[in-house]
C-alpha cells in the first residue's frame, strides 16, 4: 500500500509518529421507559451523573483545562440547556431522543456563528451531549486511547482527550475540528501535535495502521514508506533538541545573537499572577497594575490592604526591582465613585495621574502604602499618563511629604524612586525635560494617541500599529533622552510581547522589555535571534 498525504490546518505544533486509533461514535440505542415523568427523572439523573463525572475530572487538572471542564459543568447546571428536552419529554418523546434533539439544535446555533471561536464551542456541546447520552444508556466511558497513538476521527471531545495519556507522545489527525476548539487548546498545552480539517477520512474498511502528524505545517502522512518515515524521525529528533533548548532558556538571562544583554521583566495585574512562577525567569517586575485593588472590593482599599499586597509582590521578587504603577483609572478603566462619568471622550479626560492629582486624598493613601512597602525590596513607583513635567513635580512633592510624615511618626518607610510612563506623545517628544528616575513606555496608549486609532474599534484597528514608524520614532526619542540623562528606559505594553517587533524595538534603543509571564520564553527566544 502506498503512503497517503493529506493536508489540513495546523491546530497544535510539533511532530508525532504512532499507530492509528480510529474514534467511532458509539452511542447505543436505549429503550424508553415510556412514562414521561419517568423519562424526565431519567434525564435529570443522567445530567447529574454527567456533572459528577466531570467534577471528578476537574479535581485532577488545573488552569486552562479546569476552565474548559468548568464551562461544561456550568452549561449542564443551567436549566436553560435541557428546557427543550423536558418540553419534548412531556409531549411523549423518549429522554435520549429529546436530549439529543435539544442539544443538536443548540449545537447548530453554534455552528452557524460567524466567529470561528464560537463555532468551535460546538465540540464542547457535543461532548456534553454524548456524556449525558452515555449516562442515560448506563454505559461506561468511550474506548481507551493508548498512549503514543495517533487518534483519528471526525472530531474528538475534550473529555475523550483528557481520558488519554499524552505523556508518551502521540498526536491527533481529524477530518473536521477547529484550531480554536478546546481540544486544540488542550493539545497545545499538553504538547500533543494536532491537525484538523483533513476532509473525509474514508478508508473503505481498511484503515491505515500508522501515521505521521506534522502539527507545524498541517500535514498528515498515513502508512508512510520507510524513507518518508526515516526523514520524519530525523526531523523529530532535531525539533525535540530545539524545544529542550528553548525551555531551558526561560530561566536564562536574555542575550541577542551579538551578545547584548536584554532585561526581561514581568507585567502583572495582581499577586496571584505570580503563583507557581520561579522569579529566576525574569529580571524583575516591570509593571504592577494596581487597578485590581480598587475594582475587586467595594469602596477604596485602605493603606494597610495596599501595603500587604505590595509587600507580597516585593517578597516574591527576592530583591529584583519591582515597578508599581499608581492607580491608572479613567479612560477604559472607570471606577465607580472615583472616575468622572459621562466624559465626552474619557481617553482624553481625567485619567491616570490627572485623576490622582485631582483626588489627592486617595492618591496620598497609595503613596503612603508604597513608602511603607519600599523597605521590603527594590521598589520603583511609576506614574501613568504623564503629559507635562509639572505633573511629575506635584506627585514627587506629595510622595516626599508622605515619606517625611511617616518617618516623623517612626513608621518604617523609604522614599522609592519615581518614574513616568511614556504613553502621551507629548511626554515622548519632550522626554528629556522630565526629572524622572526612569521612563517606561506604555506602547498601547502611546500607539493609540499617536495614530489616533483605538484597537477595539475594528474599522481602524489596522492603524493601531505599534510598529508604525511614527510610534517607533517616539520610542527611539525616549530611549535617547534616557541615555542622555543616564536613566533606564523600558517598554511594558503589548508591543513587547509581539515578537515580530522585537528587532525594531531593540533597534530603537530599548534594552528592557516587560511582558506577561506566559510570553517570557517566547520573547527570550526571539531576542536570541536579533542581530544574527
Amino acid at each position, binding site marked *: 500500500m502506498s503512503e497517503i498525504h493529506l493536508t489540513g490546518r495546523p491546530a497544535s505544533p510539533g511532530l508525532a509518529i504512532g499507530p492509528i486509533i480510529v474514534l467511532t461514535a458509539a452511542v447505543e440505542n436505549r429503550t424508553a421507559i415510556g412514562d414521561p415523568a419517568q423519562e424526565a427523572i431519567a434525564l435529570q439523573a443522567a445530567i447529574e451523573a454527567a456533572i459528577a463525572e466531570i467534577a471528578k475530572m476537574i479535581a485532577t487538572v488545573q488552569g486552562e483545562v479546569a*476552565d474548559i471542564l468548568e464551562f461544561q459543568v456550568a452549561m449542564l447546571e443551567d436549566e436553560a440547556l435541557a428546557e427543550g428536552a423536558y418540553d419534548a419529554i412531556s409531549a411523549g418523546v423518549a429522554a435520549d431522543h429529546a436530549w439529543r434533539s435539544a442539544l443538536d439544535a443548540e449545537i447548530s446555533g453554534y455552528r452557524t456563528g460567524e466567529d470561528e471561536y464560537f463555532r468551535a*464551542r460546538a465540540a464542547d456541546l457535543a461532548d456534553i451531549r454524548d456524556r449525558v447520552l452515555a449516562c442515560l444508556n448506563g454505559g461506561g466511558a468511550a474506548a481507551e486511547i493508548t498512549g503514543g497513538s495517533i487518534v483519528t476521527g471526525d472530531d474528538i471531545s475534550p473529555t475523550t482527550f483528557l481520558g488519554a495519556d499524552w505523556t508518551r507522545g502521540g498526536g491527533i489527525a481529524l477530518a473536521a475540528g477547529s484550531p480554536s476548539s478546546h481540544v486544540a487548546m488542550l493539545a497545545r498545552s499538553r504538547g500533543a501535535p494536532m491537525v484538523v480539517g483533513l476532509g473525509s477520512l474514508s478508508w473503505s474498511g481498511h484503515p491505515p495502521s500508522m501515521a505521521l502528524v506534522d502539527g507545524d505545517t498541517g500535514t498528515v502522512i498515513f502508512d508512510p514508506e520507510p524513507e518518508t518515515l526515516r526523514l520524519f524521525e530525523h526531523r523529530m529528533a532535531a525539533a525535540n533538541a530545539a524545544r529542550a533548548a528553548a525551555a531551558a532558556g526561560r530561566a536564562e538571562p536574555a542575550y541577542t545573537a551579538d551578545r547584548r544583554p536584554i532585561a526581561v521583566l514581568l507585567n502583572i495585574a495582581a499577586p496571584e499572577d505570580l503563583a507557581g512562577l520561579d522569579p529566576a525567569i525574569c529580571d524583575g517586575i516591570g509593571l504592577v497594575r494596581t487597578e485590581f485593588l480598587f475594582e475587586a472590593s467595594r469602596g477604596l482599599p485602605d493603606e494597610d490592604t495596599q501595603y500587604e499586597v505590595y509587600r507580597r509582590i516585593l517578597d516574591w521578587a527576592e530583591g529584583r526591582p519591582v515597578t508599581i504603577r499608581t492607580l491608572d483609572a479613567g479612560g477604559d478603566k472607570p471606577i465607580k465613585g472615583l472616575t468622572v462619568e459621562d466624559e465626552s471622550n474619557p481617553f482624553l479626560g481625567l485619567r491616570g495621574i490627572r485623576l490622582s492629582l485631582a483626588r489627592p486624598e486617595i492618591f496620598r493613601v497609595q503613596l503612603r502604602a508604597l513608602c511603607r512597602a519600599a523597605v521590603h525590596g527594590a521598589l520603583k513607583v511609576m506614574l501613568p499618563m504623564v503629559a507635562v513635567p509639572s505633573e511629575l513635580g506635584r506627585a514627587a512633592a506629595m510622595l516626599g511629604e508622605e515619606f517625611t510624615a511617616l518617618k516623623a511618626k517612626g513608621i518604617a518607610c523609604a522614599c522609592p524612586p519615581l518614574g513616568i510612563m511614556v504613553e502621551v506623545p507629548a511626554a515622548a517628544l519632550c522626554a528629556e525635560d522630565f526629572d524622572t528616575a526612569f521612563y517606561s513606555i506604555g506602547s498601547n496608549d502611546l500607539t493609540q494617541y499617536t495614530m489616533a486609532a483605538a484597537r477595539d474599534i475594528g474599522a481602524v484597528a489596522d492603524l493601531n500599529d505599534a510598529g508604525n514608524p511614527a510610534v517607533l520614532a517616539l520610542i527611539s526619542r525616549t530611549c535617547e533622552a534616557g541615555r542622555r540623562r543616564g536613566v533606564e528606559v523600558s517598554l511594558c505594553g503589548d508591543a513587547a510581547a509581539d515578537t515580530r517587533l522585537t528587532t525594531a524595538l531593540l533597534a530603537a534603543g530599548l534594552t528592557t522589555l516587560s511582558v506577561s509571564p506566559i510570553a517570557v520564553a517566547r520573547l527570550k527566544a526571539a531576542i536570541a535571534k536579533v542581530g544574527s
Partner: protein
Amino acid sequence: MHDVNAGRAAETFVPLTASAVLVNPVGLHARPSVKLTQCAKGFSAKIEFALALDGPWTDAKSPVKVMRVKAPQGATLHFRVTGPDGEAALAAVLALVHDGFGEA
C-alpha cells in the same frame, strides 16, 4: 425555588443601566460567560444584558443563554439591573467586562 419576593422587589427598584465594550480578544466566549454568570449569581438583583439598547435582553445568570448571544470582541454590552443590590451588581459586572474577564 422561585423567590416570591423577587417580583415585588423588582417593582420597587428603578432599573440601573450602563454599558461596556468587550475588550478580551475572542468576545464573550466560554470562560468569560462562566465568569459573568458566576459574578451575576452572587447578587439577588435581576441582571440582564443586550447588544442593543432596545434588546433583546438576556439573563446574565444563564451561561447557556449568554453563550447564545455570541457577543464578539468590540461589541458593546448594555446592562440592565434591577434589585436591592443593583448598584453593587452593576459595578461588579462592569468591572469584569472592563477587566477583559482577567484575560490579557
